[in-house]
């Protein structure tokens, strides 16, 4: 599958990354190459094979329902570029 220019720009927009035309041209080739490389896997017959979800046989770890975290509002907003009364402050976002 070829990744065209429009797809590159679409992905960039979804990722909120500005991509110049020069960059888009480069990504077009790189992304197409990656996809084509992965597409080789389609040659393998995987009928009836369960997708692999783990390397070693193990179950997902579960926790008990206990409150043992939080209460660290200072730490949570410590790196925020802008904050007020422990809120993150961001440019106005209203739909």
């Amino acid at each position, binding site marked *: 599958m070829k990744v065209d220019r429009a797809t590159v720009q679409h992905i960039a927009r979804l990722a909120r990354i500005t991509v110049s035309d020069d960059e888009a041209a480069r990504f077009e080739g790189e992304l197409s190459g990656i996809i084509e490389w992965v597409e080789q896997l389609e040659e393998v017959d995987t009928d009836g094979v369960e997708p692999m979800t783990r390397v070693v046989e193990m179950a997902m770890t579960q926790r008990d329902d206990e409150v043992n975290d*939080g209460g660290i509002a200072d730490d949570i907003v410590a790196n925020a570029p802008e904050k007020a009364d422990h809120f993150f402050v961001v440019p106005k976002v209203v739909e």
Partner: protein
Amino acid sequence: MPNDARTSHLIEGDTGSWEIVIGLEVHAQVVSKSKLFSGASTEFGGSPNAQVSLVDAAMPGMLPVINRECVEQAVRTGLGLNAQINLVSVFDRKNYFYPDLPQGYQISQFTKPIVGEGEIVLDMGEEGEVSVGIERLHLEQDAGKSLHDQHPDHSYVDLNRSGIALMEIVSKPDLRSAEQAKVYVAKLRTILRYLGTCDGNMEEGSLRADVNVSVRKPGDELGTRCEIKNVNSIRFIGEAVDYEAARQVEILEDGGEIIQETRLFDPDAGETRSMRSKEEAHDYRYFPDPDLLPLELSQDDVERIKAELPELPDARKARFMRELALEHDVAERLVADRDVAEYFEALARGRDANLAANWITGELFGALNKLDLTIDRSPVDANQLGALLDLMDDGAVSGRTAKDVFETMLATGQPAGEIVAAQGLEQVSDTGAIEQVVDEVIAANPDQVEQVKSKPKTLGWFVGQVMQKTGGKANPQTVNDILRRKLEIGDDQDQDS
């Protein structure tokens, strides 16, 4: 029972009848102490970012660990909806950017949800029962909260809600009217509250619905739908459906086309508005979350949870009708709220069930309505009201007096017995005591006794005398009976004077 055109509510347009088709996605906050993937508290109303762990804030390197209780709550809900429980389910990342979503993705379940198809049966009164299919139920994280009114050009973000477990419960497009949509959400809320898996508090946002509406000519294929996001009251759901269906019919009859889009319901204006027309809005690029292994349940776990399920509203309603001989509508009203049903059971134990039901749906509901209280905060609990019913049953107070006593109980919180004793409201039905007073009155008034033999209507004078001497507490019927017997007067009130 199938919800076909016969039971649907068609709307009339210029080009004929239209059928409304509605499907609902309900987001129900799971009752748990801590979040779905972190140990931070789920308590409502905490100070900003005080209930946030480094996992909820999506700090680099933090890993999610699932809360066992949230999983069990989802299974419990699935069983309560008579749904298939999937022993293996998978968490996926739903990718989008928003300031209240620090991860840049929501952990949700896309292709393999924990609960599959189920069913809710709606009691539509006259219309009969309507079966609504459940498509699926999956677990996901809630987002944080943005406040837009704190600053003219900034939004404030609080992540306390971020990471709290939600159940998204998706119905099939089986609903055909605003009324059915409202009854569906009310019934789902009732079931969740019975199960204890969601508190159903719509004001605090514990239960909110996305409403999908389309219209079609009866028998046609499904029309293009619009999704009305985050409607947070049952009344608004009804209003949103009616407005949206009328809007779509008008567009189609004018030769226009419905654009599939997300809309917002504005309760003040009573209308829906387009929220975003970005075509890319739904490109979520789901993929399995590499931080989480598949969620596996054993059949034994499911069976254990099933064995512990409480009695659900439909079963309870059937039992109230079968064992306590309640009318269908009365039983329906009592089971609609778990707290009401429990109050009723406590009150009816060892008492006349219909009397208990009448007092709850009449006096108690009236009082709670006036005081704007829910039954769990009633100033008169089931034991206290029970004591009053017992006084009536013993004949100690009349039905009329009981209502006055109940008013005083509401106002003062005093026990019924104390109020009756303190205010001397006790009705005297003790025939011995009354007889003695009657004898005194007869002995003291020979002239009147002579007169009443020819003019039976003057019996009322004797009743008055007896009531006066007993301070109004004698049971008037008993007084009447005793007087008639002693004065040898028949029951016929119309005897010629």
